[in-house]
């Protein structure tokens, strides 16, 4: 099969996925689907409530996934989480604080916080240092983000994005401060480390479910359903390939 036809198949798959997402979002707009319960999100709701009540802050670590890198989707998923968390805590005097290990991501985190602040009922001035670049290498990023956990009246640390092993330092800092930590990453080494060190780790592609569980909009639950459908498609293709290989056709 030529590269052109592979491109056509890929593009058609993307178009179909997009069409399905839009269709499902339209059809299910009045009765949103219910997903399996993930305890981490229930704990997160509790942490948001506590933060609003006691005037503390949430710290969202967005990782090091640059927008022009293959890890950009995890960064975008983290930004969706940041936007929603900022909206949910907009009644509080202390908006969430975001740290990033990539400059473009830090700028987008500022823009995200700014756009939520514009709709916020609280009349305080916007603090442009709410979204911060804490370092450009893995461990300098973690070292720069560590003081945020301890010094900024943070009651919950959320790690949403692309991390490496350095994520363990951030969850350890949250543990030492006795604060809640929820962590999700697209990176396999980080997932292994976060499974051991975070209070509530999210595994696999659960990072991309953050928007749906935080009710960020109708396209988020629809995209989860499309992911499930595509997963079944992949399973079928793998099984057919396995059978054809056994039969000697492939």
């Amino acid at each position, binding site marked *: 099969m030529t*590269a052109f036809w592979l491109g*056509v198949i890929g593009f058609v798959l*993307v178009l179909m*996925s*997009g069409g399905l*997402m839009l269709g499902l979002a339209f059809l299910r707009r009045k009765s949103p689907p219910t997903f399996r319960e993930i305890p981490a999100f229930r704990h997160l709701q509790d942490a948001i409530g506590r933060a609003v009540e006691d005037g503390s802050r949430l710290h969202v670590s967005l990782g090091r996934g*640059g927008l*022009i890198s293959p890890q950009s*989707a*995890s960064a*975008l*998923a983290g*930004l969706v989480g940041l936007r929603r968390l900022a909206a949910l805590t907009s009644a509080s005097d202390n908006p969430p604080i975001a740290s990033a290990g990539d*400059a*473009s991501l*830090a*700028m*987008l985190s*500022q823009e*995200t916080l700014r*756009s939520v602040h514009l*709709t916020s009922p609280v009349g305080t001035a916007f603090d*442009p*240092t709410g979204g*911060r*670049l*804490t370092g*450009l*290498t*893995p*461990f*300098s990023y*973690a*070292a720069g983000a560590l003081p945020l956990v301890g*010094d900024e009246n943070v009651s919950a640390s959320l790690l949403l994005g692309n991390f490496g*092993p*350095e994520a*363990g*330092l951030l969850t*350890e800092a949250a*543990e030492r401060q006795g604060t809640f930590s929820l962590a999700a990453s*697209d990176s*396999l080494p980080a997932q292994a*480390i976060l*499974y*051991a*060190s975070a*209070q509530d780790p999210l595994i696999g*592609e659960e*990072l*991309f*479910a953050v*928007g749906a569980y935080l009710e960020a909009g109708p*396209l*988020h639950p629809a*995209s989860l359903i*499309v*992911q499930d459908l595509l*997963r079944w498609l*992949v399973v079928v293709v793998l099984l057919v390939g396995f059978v054809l290989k056994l039969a000697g056709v492939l």
Partner: protein
Amino acid sequence: MKLRGLLSTVFAMAFGLLVLLGYFFEVQPFYGLRVVFVEWAVILAGFAVLVGLGNLVTVHIKKIRAREKGSVYGLLLIFALLMTFLAGLAWGPDHPNMVLLFRAVQFPVEASLMALLTVSLAYASIRMLRRRLNLFSIVFLGTVLVVLLGTASLPLLGDVPFLGDWVRPFVSQVIAGAGARGILIGVALGTLTTGLRVLFGADRPYGGK
């Protein structure tokens, strides 16, 4: 403001779609446009580093002015940043002195943090059993122990024959390999739908309601 948001969304969608077409169809004009747009993005990302450094300095100046806890470290950071920045401008990033600066300061500091992380992780693993004692946690720790014992030589005993030759390769290459591929397929599907949401303008990381 509304017009700005609308324009941003329209531009993001149009450029995103053109780049996507350029990836699937390596024919002109899509391929050429994709290359040009990605080059622009790289230049913008490079400029964003300068803006990000400005943000870093602003945060620490604010800390120093407010005499917050740890503001001395902020002062040290600004001083080191300026010195390194000026040295980089004067010598260029590939100059032996800049390489030495990286090897003598940055590299050992990061290596020390990595060493600290191993201790933190050992402690976190024990804490995990207290916090989340279930089958998955036990399997997780059991796998860690098996792979560690199979990888490292033990004092006096040397390599553990059965673990190192058979169990560790089976666990890390077959079981873990299969699981990792499953997770990566899930991540790829999540990446696809996240990208589509940005293309549809449902997720707008560039601001706007």
